[in-house]
């Protein structure tokens, strides 16, 4: 094997017009969004899918179940966002570069449980965006049929549904009291989904930009 001059550059599923930047080996948009309604590409976040019994030791260790989310304060998944994405199915989101630790953490949970469970790293196989702003429910009402009222989808709730005809995990994850949703879908549809969201959000002044310090699945005070 010869030496490869260029270090590998990872690219998320999304690209937008304008300058790009490379951070921690990931190339993303360098645009800055300052408006009241923002879409941020969170593709570089670690994404693990976990399968196991819907109500057993693995569920107890992950700390949440279908339709809900939790941010473990301690333990092997501390700092990650654990989403109950389906019956007996979880999505673990973590900061970029923490894949090895989180994978090991989930595997230790599985090993300790004695249950049949599995984990797959889908960091590269999924697209992830965050929509933030007071008008996000209005925007999403143009592409998703689910009632997003507080009593149906409160902060911390999650569901899987069709968003612009793409199967999408929708996670309500408010940021400092502002409505915010994570949208997670299969990678190849990511650009289409993002374009659909931007198109639907034009009338509300949507802007696309790089993640801010808040546009991260980790570190939210609860």
């Amino acid at each position, binding site marked *: *094997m*010869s030496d*490869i001059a*260029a*270090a*590998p*550059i*990872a*690219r*998320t*599923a999304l*690209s937008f017009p304008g300058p790009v930047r490379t951070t921690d080996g*990931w190339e993303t948009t360098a645009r800055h969004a300052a408006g009241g309604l923002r879409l941020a590409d969170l*593709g570089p976040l670690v994404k693990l*899918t976990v*399968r196991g019994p819907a109500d057993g030791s693995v569920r107890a260790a992950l700390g949440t179940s279908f339709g809900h989310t939790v941010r473990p304060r301690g333990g092997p998944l501390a700092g990650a966002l654990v989403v109950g994405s389906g019956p007996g199915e979880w999505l673990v989101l973590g900061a970029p570069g923490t894949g090895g630790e989180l994978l090991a953490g989930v595997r230790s949970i599985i090993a300790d449980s004695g249950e*049949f*469970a*599995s984990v*797959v*790293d*889908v*960091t*590269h*196989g*999924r697209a992830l965006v965050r929509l933030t702003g007071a008008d996000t429910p*209005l925007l999403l*009402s*143009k*592409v*998703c*049929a*689910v*009632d997003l*009222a507080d*009593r*149906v989808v409160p902060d911390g709730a999650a569901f899987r549904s069709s968003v*612009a*005809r*793409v199967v999408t995990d929708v996670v309500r994850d408010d940021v400092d009291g502002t409505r915010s949703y994570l949208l997670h879908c*299969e*990678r*190849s*549809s990511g*650009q*289409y*989904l993002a374009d*659909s969201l931007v198109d639907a959000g034009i*009338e509300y002044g949507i802007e696309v930009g790089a993640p801010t310090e808040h546009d991260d699945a980790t570190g939210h005070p609860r």
Partner: protein
Amino acid sequence: MSRARPGGSHRLGARPGEVIDRSRTIEFRWNGVTHTAHPGDTIASALAAAGVRVFARSYKYHRPRGLLTADIFDPGAILQVGDEPNVRAAHRLVEAGMDVRSQNTWPSLRYDVKAVNQLAGRFLATGFYYKTFIKPERLWPTYEKVLRRFVHAGEVSPDSEQPYFDKRYAHPDVLVAGGGPAGMAAAVAAARAGASVMLVEQEHQLGGHLRWGDAEDLRCRDELVAAVEAESNIEVLTDSVVAARYDDNWLAVVQRGLPHVAERLVKARAGTLVVAAGLIERPYVFAGNDLPGVMLSTAVRRLLNLYAVRPGSRAVVFTANPEGDAAAADLRAAGVDVVEVDARHGRTVVRATGRGGVEAVELSDGSRIEADLLVTAVGWTAPTSLLNMSGANPGYRPDAARFVPDPAATPAAVIAVGGIAGDGTRDELVAHADAAGREAAARALALAASRAGSADTRDPVAVPQLGLHHHPELFFALPTGGFVDMSEDVSAKDILTAVKEGYDSSELVKRYTTATMGPAQGKLETVNTVALVAHATGKTIAETGATTWRPMYTPITLGALAGRKFEPVRHSPMQPWHTSHKAAPLIAGQWIRPEHYGDPVAEVRNVRQNVGIIDVTPIGKLDLQGPDVAKLLNLLYVNKWSQLGIGRVRYGVMCAEDGVVLDDGVTGRLAENHYLMSTTSSGAGTVWEWAENWLQTEHPEWQVHVTPVTTAYASINVAGPKSRELLARLTDVDLDNAAFGYMNVRTGTIAGVADCVLWRIGFTGELSYELHVPASYGLHVWETLMATGADLGIAPFGVEAQRILRLEKGHLIVGQDTDGLTKAYSAGLDWAVKLDKPDFVGKPELAWQAARGEHPKLVGLRPLDTSVVPEEAAQIISDGGYIVGRITSSRLSPTLGRPICLGQVDAHLADPGTRLTVRLRNGSDTTVEVTAEHAHFDPEGERQRV
């Protein structure tokens, strides 16, 4: 452009409730002449202010028509605006620069040649088309061409820019249809009770009839509007309509007047629907009732009080109710000479006469009054459509001369308020709506609570019952004359004729005469039609009954129904490279793939001679984990999997229960309990669901987890005799044939990217490696391969080259060389089917197929005429002209320099050397010969095993 005409010859001084902005003046064109208007004017009000009386010609007889209702239902003001036909000019707000024209008039609105139809009127009566054009049938195409010239519709230029239509969903607890006083009161009450409310109003402002009322009406309107605006959980949609109600309060709301959006369909799922549609004034049927200058009292009050337009100078007001009296008072206040004809005292109007407009009015007592305006106020139609769509069927009340809903027979999720529910003073109606709004909220919130698993502990709200005021029954004058449906040009005489001909029910008369089928959808016409049918049959109106009210409440565009188009597309991580290298896009399901990069033949040759790479990311990939994966594979595939070692790859075929080939692909064993399965690109979703279905329904005890990872990997096939040399420069995996032989799998690093999966397989028939790279690095690896292989002659190849390569090699494509009837043995997969396995999906059917041995077979075919490539799907025929098979794949082979095919043929014709006839698309025949193998090139597989 013509000189601007000064608008306002009929414009009055400022009115307390006017909606126009007099501080600004805008210009627009009407039939080529420039007019002025104020913002807030409708097209019709602006034209009326300019003294325009005739707006259109009628549907069939091309009679001159003017304003009747001065709102969205007005049948006399349907115009062309720019490229948009059928615009409701009495509703659409005028805009600067609008080009407004009358529709289907020639040479002009004033001198319309087609008005000759009036002379032939007696030949154009009821059932004219059915009676006239039914025979001889062969002449219908000719009739159709002529009739099309008379169609009363506008024009759409094929060059028109396609408007943008939109869609959204809504989930209000309470949806209120109608923003009049009752609707507003109900909305406010519901909101204050804690419900989220959507308030939908067809007009441009809230207020309903209060808008054109007296000072007290305006004060009440202002208070209610302020109350609505104070409630943050009321969403107000003006210039919008609840077009339909379906089961479970699924409500189709069409929203207009949005910036940059033609119309938006709001799919609302409401807990409770409050119907506050108000009452629609009913026209009176008498001779000359369609003359311009005949108007409803509400139309007159709209024009006077909303738009400050004086509709005439000498008026006869035919009134049977207080609203008619109020119209007379408003006219007098505007300086119009008014003669009242009070129906409550037994006097009626029997005829209006004039040329091009009202000039005189004849009364039942024989008197004649000269006037240019005849105002009628003879009663109301309750627009009960949404109630009827809910399953309620309001009954006719002769004492009130209208249909009235029965609250006890109305579904719990639907409540009627306002004039549609009954009569009362303004305060009584508001109080009723207030209670109904609270009850609507209570029902909706209880429903939401029950869905959340909570018990319904609410206290029902007592909703008072509204009474009914007496109103005389006034529908038509005798002797009968005039028009019942001015949109469709259906006369009273037409209705009576239809009944005489045996169409003696409302539904039959509707279909025979087309009465009520016009743009107003019966709002103006239904009750009068029913009254005439009742008169002709000797039945009561209650016995006769109304026609069925169906969606849409108000006609909406097809664009609104189509809404926003969602057509997902999928791209691989290498798509930017393909685009920048001018790849011809191939739409494969949702995927956009490179079909070729300019020359697929050269791409084939390069793979055979050097090395090529193809983006095969869409290949389905499933991550399988668990101790029972081998059991699952043995169940789903027809071949055996128990002995597949770690690091090995095997080709497998899946069949459905009927033995028909479902999918194929290779599966590799990565670790003891970890496998990676590949599927066809189009079969990825199907196979995932297929595997989950069998696991969840038949073998929930098996410990297997299936995770779709199709796009977790960017997949690149590196094919060609130099592929090993190229890959060796970039990977830490030992590629020596002894270490990494054909049909093996390895994991390792490629171009600095860890966790890559390498399969040594050969769809192209060449030495090749299929690389599965963590998708985010796909573009990096692709670009590195291209750069590193430059000295080896590397070139990308697309799907077309791949199809040729695999056909040369004789590999089938599921769905191309198989169809929905092709069982495994028909696909030539005899070698793969292991009937000695204990069980697998499709085994019984395949065992039966094997025993019978009569199935069609997939065979290789070689055309004898090397200049002819039989088209795919061309029929293979026998000497007797019978179809005995078809060509499934065909190409001119760049490698062999001759055409090659695969085809399915009947079993007795599948022996090698058999010559068959293929019928080509141009009708000629060509001969093909069955080959010994599917593979036309390297049947021994020597090139891929090196």
